[in-house]
């Protein structure tokens, strides 16, 4: 007795005809099991002739359609999703909304007993809704345990490995090529950029010629040993003695700067300011209590810096000018050992003028002696 099973959907119906193998178990059921497929017909709306074929065609159809449905949902293309494709039925995407179903002639020599109508290849373009109806007809067939029970829906996600190998080599190597070439471009661009010169702020006495000038500078206020040959650097200071001008004391002296190699911004200006202070615009601080206070501050600052430095090996004498707020605005080496030393222990304490300090700021001068034993003596000048 021929068994006929039909799965109908609006755009597609699947008709299977076959026989039951007549085993005892199946006879008890209301619906006998269709276990031997004789013919399969697939009607699609818009297609006059149904797609028909035997078992080979049907298996190929269900595999291809099921696989393509997964591809459609995930967007991941992998043709041989379920093992080697029987390749009688193929589905390809045309665009987002149409899909081409191709039925190829059965391979020659196949021992199908089905009528040869299927040997003609067919091409059908399905819309998404039609495709869904075909998928649904097949899923209903899969769900039917009384029809070809050995065929069931088997869904497995595609492995990462297959995705990687499916991509063409050019596509896979593209990111690496882009990365390497952009690195090369960046390297070339950086090669053209000049290496920035490091300019470290220098001491007032880093070089012999600067030191010589400092030595020759007369100290109008303190030492009282007028130099008979005043150097040009001193010229900048001397007029300041007679005509106190705020501009000359506050800013770096225009005559002094070209002579010294030191940075004009930081060191010379406080030095000249500090040294000019006793007789010039700057008023010396005379209040004993205040001087005492500043002395304390200065000792504290020096101690703080000296802590992590090795003790000096010879006595160093500096004259240090301190502002009212305790900031060291300038200092000057007072003995040969201090002059010869390239980096004074005080250099990092020096107040770096940000903006402008008031030009005629009251200053107090101190004598700072660094003894070889590591002690520091601060006394008012």
């Amino acid at each position, binding site marked *: 007795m021929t068994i006929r099973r039909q799965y109908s959907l609006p755009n597609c119906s699947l008709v299977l005809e076959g026989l039951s193998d007549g085993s005892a178990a199946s006879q008890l059921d209301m619906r006998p099991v269709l276990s031997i497929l004789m013919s399969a017909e697939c009607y699609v709306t818009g297609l006059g002739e149904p797609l028909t074929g035997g078992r080979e065609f049907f298996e190929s159809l269900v595999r291809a359609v099921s696989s393509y449905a*997964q591809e459609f949902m*995930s967007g991941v293309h*992998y043709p041989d999703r379920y093992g080697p494709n029987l390749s009688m039925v193929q589905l390809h995407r045309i665009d987002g909304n149409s899909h081409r179903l191709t039925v190829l002639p059965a391979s020659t020599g196949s021992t199908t007993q089905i009528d040869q109508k299927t040997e003609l290849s067919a091409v059908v373009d399905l*819309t998404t809704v039609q495709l869904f109806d075909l998928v649904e007809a097949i899923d209903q067939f*899969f769900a039917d345990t009384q029809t070809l029970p050995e065929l069931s829906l*088997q*869904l*497995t*996600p595609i492995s990462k490995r297959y995705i990687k190998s499916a991509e063409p080599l050019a596509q896979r190597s593209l990111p690496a090529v882009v990365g390497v070439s952009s690195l090369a471009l960046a390297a070339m661009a950086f090669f053209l950029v000049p290496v920035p010169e490091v300019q470290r702020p220098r001491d007032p006495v880093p070089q012999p010629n600067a030191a010589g000038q400092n030595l020759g500078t007369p100290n109008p206020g303190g030492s009282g040993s007028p130099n008979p040959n005043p150097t040009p650097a001193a010229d900048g200071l001397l007029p300041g003695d007679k005509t106190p001008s705020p501009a000359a004391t506050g800013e770096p002296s225009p005559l002094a700067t070209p002579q010294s190699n030191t940075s004009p911004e930081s060191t010379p200006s406080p030095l000249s300011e500090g040294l000019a202070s006793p007789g010039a615009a700057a008023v010396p601080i005379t209040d004993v209590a205040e001087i005492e206070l500043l002395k304390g501050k200065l000792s504290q600052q020096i101690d703080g810096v000296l802590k992590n430095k090795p003790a000096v090996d010879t006595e160093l004498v500096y004259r240090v000018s301190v502002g009212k707020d305790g900031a060291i605005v300038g200092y000057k080496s007072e003995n040969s050992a201090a002059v010869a030393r390239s980096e004074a222990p005080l250099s990092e304490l020096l107040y770096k003028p940000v903006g402008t300090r008031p030009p005629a700021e009251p200053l107090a001068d101190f004598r700072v002696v660094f003894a070889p034993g590591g002690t520091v003596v601060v006394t008012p000048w």
Partner: protein
Amino acid sequence: MDVAVILMPSETSLTESNPLILDSLPDLSLNDGGCPRRARLQIDLMLLAIEALYLGGAEEMLAVSKELELESIIKNRVAFWLMRNTNPLRRYTQRRSLTVVEAKALVAIACNMARKLTATIRQLLQDSQQLRSRNVPLNQNLLLFEYLERFRAHFRSRMNPKRSVVVAYDSDEKLNELALNLLSKLLFCTGTAGMQRFWVSLFDGEVE
């Protein structure tokens, strides 16, 4: 590929802790336990499309989760919102990943809703197909126009405009395209094996 998962519900696969409906979805081996990025994105977009199809869809989703006895997984509205916000494109995206059980619950809800909306989904897809074949703009059809407009509004208000994927959908046409693509995927969810197909498709190219 060597492990075939047969999706017939079997006695042995039933566990007491999980709601019955989720047992039809296979546990796919994942190295870190969480769901891949594409799965989180796709699930949320599908739910977004359902919301655009159906006013009050978000409320309905909570009702469906009760119906399917998923309360143990989706405890309340906030938990549901947090789960959907594991979509990396969301404005308030969550750092945590979506667990496999949570993802199954969301898939079950999406497919259940889609099945209820089968007639609408089919109608909209057929209409859009006809309009395209005649080169008529899609907004000529009122139902389709409403769906597309709502989808665009939902997408723009909830997705982070700084993400490059979101930036790519800068025009109405591109968002319409996305909306129709999601609609056709929803159609496949309505089928007999729609839930399994959707679930397995989320892991294509993600498993070892």
